[in-house]
């Protein structure tokens, strides 16, 4: 398995959906290729950052819906 081939399997690898033989080849390559290890770590971090980029730890209580939008929605129903 080359780095290029391995790159195509990263998402399935992280999702745990690779067939056992492909997973074994993936991990064998990772054992000898530090560049792929670094890339995988970056990929994993990127997914985590993307997932949580919209979280706001300073505002655990979610904002309320703008009052003018509430009024507009209710008015348009009538």
């Amino acid at each position: 398995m080359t780095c290029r081939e391995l790159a195509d399997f990263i998402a399935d690898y992280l999702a745990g959906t690779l067939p056992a033989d492909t997973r074994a080849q993936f991990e064998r390559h990772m054992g000898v290729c530090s560049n792929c290890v670094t890339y995988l770590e970056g990929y994993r971090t990127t997914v985590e950052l993307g997932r949580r980029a919209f979280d706001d730890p300073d505002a655990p209580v979610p904002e309320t819906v703008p009052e003018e939008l509430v009024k507009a929605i209710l008015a348009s129903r009538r």
Partner: protein
Amino acid sequence: MMRYKPWRMALQVENDAALVQGLKGGEEWAFEALVRAFGARLLATARRLVGNEEDARDVVQSAYLSAFRAIGQFEGSAQLSTWLHRIVVNTALMRLRSRRRKPEESIEALLPAFQADGHYVEWFSSWDVPADRLLERKETRRAVRVAIEQLPETYRTVLVLRDIEELSTQEAAEVLDITPSAVKVRLHRARQALLTLLRPHFQRSATR
């Protein structure tokens, strides 16, 4: 860090069933409760998909009208929040399709390049700061949001639906009207492109 998912929060009124009954009976309080209970979270979803406040508010308004009209068909087995979330996603995607005017930029330049023998062209350097620490910084979260906004729309949409709105591959395929394998390919490329866009930020962060 606390996480919340807009459409999975418990409803702030007594329960879904009472609210649905009120909606089906055309009771004004129920419509207002539905807007107040979910509006902010649905607006956040719409913002993530359409990218600007004005369109996002239009999407939410239009989605609520669709929901009010379709409440008769709402089945008690589903969650109101999930049902509304799906309507907002569909409405936002329709909005994106209708405003798409020019051909989309290619994502190729943001994907990793390989040599003829299959090795990466670039040698990647390690990021010493874990995601948790990076995410404590407001500026990091902002940089990630800006980078997501820079992704070509087709890819950004899949990333938002799968990684942020947490639709399954199958659900994303249905709302986008593409195959599940196309969803998987686009999601992977979107993440790779995001990684390319974020790497300079991480490296700077890591040396601070």
